[in-house]
């Protein structure tokens, strides 16, 4: 089980041979996008089913703990008093505090249990809208300044909204050409090797998941976006999915993109689509 060792030169040859047969046909009008995407979802989820036959599909929302019993028992012990609990309380307080103009987050999001409405592709604006982006847009629409995207108050509000949305099904639609292009952009990001280490998301979270990479078992790529924001022991704080993306990219010695950049929003879109059929269970706690 060591496909990552494939020499790039070799892959390059293979690539040239089959490239013409497999090049994306994504830009054509009138294609059955939901069917194309469903094929990808099925293939992607089957990869993990084959790799971890003992793991229930629904359990992938628990990340690496779905495949590592020793780590799981430590995590379960930590969840006795989840380290994000205080942040959720603070997020609730922020959520309920009125803005200067008298409205509040509830004006935009009702009771806040809207996690499963994000991310989605906004046809008018031709871009993916994430929950964190929507939170800040709610603020600016009400005359408040934007919050930082990686941690702090925005992560807390997002954590609260995720908490009250726990159990909502992940079911992201990709129904238009624009949506499909954003999806394909995220897909390309996920499978492209980058950085000085020449590693893709898929190298760690598909090929190497379940194996040790130095001291760590990379989590399965399936279910990764279900449990953010996440409180990491390493951060000693709550962080958003895009903060984690930035950390991952730096680990492979690639320059990270900004949180809520088109690259990371499209990656979140693709990854969430891949987890269709699971449920949102954020906020999470991780090492």
């Amino acid at each position, binding site marked *: 089980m060591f496909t990552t060792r494939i020499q790039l030169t070799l892959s390059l040859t293979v690539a040239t041979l089959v490239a013409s047969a497999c090049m994306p046909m994504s830009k054509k009008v009138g294609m059955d996008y939901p069917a194309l995407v469903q094929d990808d979802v099925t293939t992607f989820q089957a990869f993990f089913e084959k790799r971890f036959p003992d793991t229930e599909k629904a359990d992938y929302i628990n990340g690496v703990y779905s495949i590592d019993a020793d780590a799981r028992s430590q995590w379960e*012990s930590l969840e006795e008093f989840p380290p994000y609990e205080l942040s959720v309380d603070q997020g609730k307080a922020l959520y309920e505090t009125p803005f200067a103009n008298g409205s509040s987050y509830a004006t935009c999001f009702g009771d806040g249990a809207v996690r499963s409405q994000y991310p989605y592709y906004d046809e008018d604006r031709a871009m993916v809208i994430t929950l964190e982006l929507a939170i800040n847009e709610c603020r600016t629409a009400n005359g408040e300044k934007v919050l930082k995207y990686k941690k702090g108050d925005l992560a807390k509000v997002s954590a609260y909204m995720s908490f009250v949305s726990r159990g909502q099904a992940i079911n992201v639609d990709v129904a238009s050409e624009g949506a499909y292009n954003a999806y394909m952009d995220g897909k390309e990001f996920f499978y492209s090797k980058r950085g000085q280490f020449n590693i893709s998301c898929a190298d760690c979270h598909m090929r190497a998941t379940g194996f040790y*990479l*130095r*001291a760590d*078992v990379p989590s399965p790529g399936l279910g990764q976006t279900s449990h953010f924001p996440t409180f*990491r*022991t390493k951060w000693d704080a709550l962080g958003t999915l895009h903060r984690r993306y930035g950390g991952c990219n730096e680990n492979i010695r690639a320059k990270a993109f900004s949180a809520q950049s088109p690259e990371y929003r499209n990656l979140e879109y693709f990854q969430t689509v891949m987890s269709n059929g699971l449920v949102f269970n954020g906020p999470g706690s991780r*090492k």
Partner: protein
Amino acid sequence: MNQSRRQFMTRVGKSVAFLVAVVNLPRVVWANWSASAFGATDLDTAIVERYGNLAIADSDAIQLKAPSIAEHGAVVPISIATTLAAKSISVFVEKNPSPLSCSFNIQPKMNTDVSVRIRMGATSNLIVLVEADGKLYRTSQEVKVTIGGCGG
């Protein structure tokens, strides 16, 4: 109240949930802390400072639950249970700068089943000593602590 009352009050704000009331300082004499044992910098000294020269025997009447590989050295969850008539239970991490981590003094109505989260600076033996019948009973386990990597 004295100065600690003020510090105490600042902490009250941080306490949430589950609490029905905050009461006055208890009628407790805080004078039991084994400073010399907690200050010891090697395992043998720490044990002697804590327990004198009681005989030590390995025992399988102590159940120690600890990870084989710690997720993070800053938070290593451990649980200890024993059927011995324990007077105290102490946790030592051999390679920590101060090996004695914590010590439970068993009270008449207290069950001998405890959990705690400790720090481990490096891969090390975790040693649990149970004091019972004027002797020390021991169980131990290695816990690997890794650094670096990308964090799952």
